[in-house]
């Protein structure tokens, strides 16, 4: 089987660049034949992972980068969002529904973001260790074209 093609975009972990990632990934998804609704879902999912990097990965010191790999498999788009920031203990991720009275600062954090990634993609996983960065992998299958 041929090696899958890969589109890699790396941007500073700053909020203004999350829209750039959305544009790049939606371009790849459109080329693969995803429906408009699927492309919107993918945009939200990848933005949630990037937003998490922007908000949490580099709390002190110089801001690093967020790297987004779009891997084009025959019938699936795989997206890997990674950083080399502070990382976290994945056991501490909680669903926002488990925290109805979460701190009232107007930001839901990774809990709701992960809910979106899980709901909008066909599969996802988060790997992180304190001090060793975070990798979020997700994938979505291309809808079968009617013949």
């Amino acid at each position, binding site marked *: 089987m041929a090696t899958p093609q890969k589109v890699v975009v790396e941007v500073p972990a700053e909020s203004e660049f999350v*829209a750039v990632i959305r*544009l790049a990934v939606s371009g790849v998804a459109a080329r693969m034949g995803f429906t408009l*609704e699927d492309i919107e879902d993918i945009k939200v999912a990848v*933005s949630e992972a990037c*937003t998490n990097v922007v908000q949490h990965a580099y709390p002190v010191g110089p801001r690093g980068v967020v790297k987004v790999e779009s891997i084009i498999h025959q019938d699936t788009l795989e997206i890997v969002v990674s950083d080399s920031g502070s990382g976290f203990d994945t056991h501490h991720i909680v669903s*926002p529904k488990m925290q109805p009275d979460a701190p009232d*600062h*107007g930001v*839901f954090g990774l809990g709701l973001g992960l*809910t979106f990634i899980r709901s909008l993609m066909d599969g996802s996983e988060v790997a992180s260790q304190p001090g060793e960065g975070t990798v979020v992998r997700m994938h979505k299958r291309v809808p079968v074209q009617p013949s």
Partner: protein
Amino acid sequence: MVIEFSVSVDSNGLLPVVRVVGEIDVYTCPKLHKVLTELMGESSSSVVLDLQEVHYIDSTGLGTIAHSARQLSKENRHMHVVTARPQVKKIFEISGLTSKNIRLFEEESHACAE
């Protein structure tokens, strides 16, 4: 194509209407948060948030809206969100926010009449 983000307030009707154009994400939501916070301080009524020209919203935008809705509900005021876009409605529905103190409307006239 990226549409430039803007937020405006129309205070001429029965309820104040906040109209948003563009994408609501981690970069733009502080601007929305500022406008909503200022409006809620100036007005004592419920608030209509018109998202008809918003085609993208994620958890950061929802967090901003939920925060304002929670502040409003403490004073028995409400947040009426207007959108007919399936993708935006879907994001609200997945979040579960519409079951709390946010009501979705497809037309601004209906949101203002409540």
